């Protein structure tokens, strides 16, 4: 099989019937990211754009492509890595992220969950009652926003892809949660909340992996030890089965969601400032402080038990 240009085929995009060689695939991919940014009005000229980077394929590809089009968009890039403190997992991601940033001549800023919560994620999941993914998600979001504020960034880009978006939409459909469906749009409602953007949100995960492999990007592929079989995994497998039988389903899930949020109104929750950290939150005490306070009590109890 050959690409339309005559080059050796590396990818058949089943949902459009197109066949790509490496060069044409790279051109398509980079143009698609650029078009997504433009059509969703994600970035303005002269924006300082933070990028949440983990060393995994999505954020590495995002950083790599944005660095290619940053000149055209007239933006600067500021990668941020959050070290969750997961033994045997995070180190390979840090190494990969450092190599990528060094090769792109970008300064990598690192922050850790331990600095914020006083414990690593490994310690939190030992001490606390919540699931490790709850601590990780809540504290990571808070840290990224904190870092972005400190660096006076205008936007915060993450590597969420089309599959992530389709899964999130489907999970909220199943739960009947219209408010969360609206929140996926990522509209910041407070000036202290840095606007989140997802420039890969129209690109399937498979194409992202393909781009990483074709361009020999330095990517960490270790699986998080806390990522087990969960609701999202089941939804992911279900959507991939549908996509395999009927190519284009993932894109249709997105376009269906866009129509639903256009024709429905979300419940408007007033925004407060967290009484503890002054961070914007829909609650009086933000979820991050709530978790951190809960851990402080658990830590005290554990120390007391040892002393007794």
């Amino acid at each position: 099989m050959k690409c339309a240009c005559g080059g050796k085929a590396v990818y058949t995009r089943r949902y459009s019937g197109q066949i790509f060689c490496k060069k044409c695939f790279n051109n398509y991919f980079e143009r698609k990211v650029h078009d997504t940014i433009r059509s969703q009005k994600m970035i303005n000229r002269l924006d300082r754009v933070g990028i949440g980077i983990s060393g995994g394929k999505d954020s590495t590809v995002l950083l790599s492509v944005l660095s290619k089009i940053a000149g055209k968009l007239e933006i600067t890039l500021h990668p941020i890595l959050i070290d969750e403190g997961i033994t045997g997992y995070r180190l390979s991601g840090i190494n990969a992220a450092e190599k990528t940033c060094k090769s792109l001549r970008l300064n990598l800023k690192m922050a850790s969950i331990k600095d914020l919560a006083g414990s690593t994620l490994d310690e939190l999941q030992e001490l606390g009652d919540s699931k490790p993914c709850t601590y990780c998600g809540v504290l990571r979001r808070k840290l990224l926003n904190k870092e972005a504020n400190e660096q006076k960034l205008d936007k915060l880009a993450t590597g969420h892809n089309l599959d992530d978006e389709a899964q999130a939409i489907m999970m909220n459909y199943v739960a009947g949660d219209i408010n969360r469906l609206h929140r996926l749009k990522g509209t910041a409602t407070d000036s202290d909340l840095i606007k989140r953007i997802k420039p890969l949100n129209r690109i399937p995960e498979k194409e992202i992996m393909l781009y990483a492999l074709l361009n020999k990007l330095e990517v960490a592929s270790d699986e998080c030890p806390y990522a087990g079989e969960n609701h999202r995994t089941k939804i992911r497998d279900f959507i991939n089965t549908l996509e395999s039988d009927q190519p284009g389903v993932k894109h249709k899930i997105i376009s269906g969601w866009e129509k639903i949020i256009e024709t429905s109104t979300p419940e408007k929750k007033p925004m407060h400032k967290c009484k503890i950290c002054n961070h914007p939150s829909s609650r009086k005490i933000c979820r991050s402080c709530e978790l951190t306070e809960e851990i402080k009590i658990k830590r005290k109890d554990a120390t007391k038990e040892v002393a007794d």
Partner: protein
Amino acid sequence: MIVFVDGKKKDISKEDCRVCDLLEELGVNREAVVTVVNGEITVEETELSEGDEIKIISAVSGG
């Protein structure tokens, strides 16, 4: 043929088939993987021959 799924070697008796047939035989969803045949990334319609080395790399994130 020699098949590796995420680095683990699998014994396969199937010969002279396409990559997509092999994936089906292994119960691997083609939407979730990238395939490398004899060191080169290739499309799933590629015909395989005896002695080919196939690497199936998962495209989905595990965390």
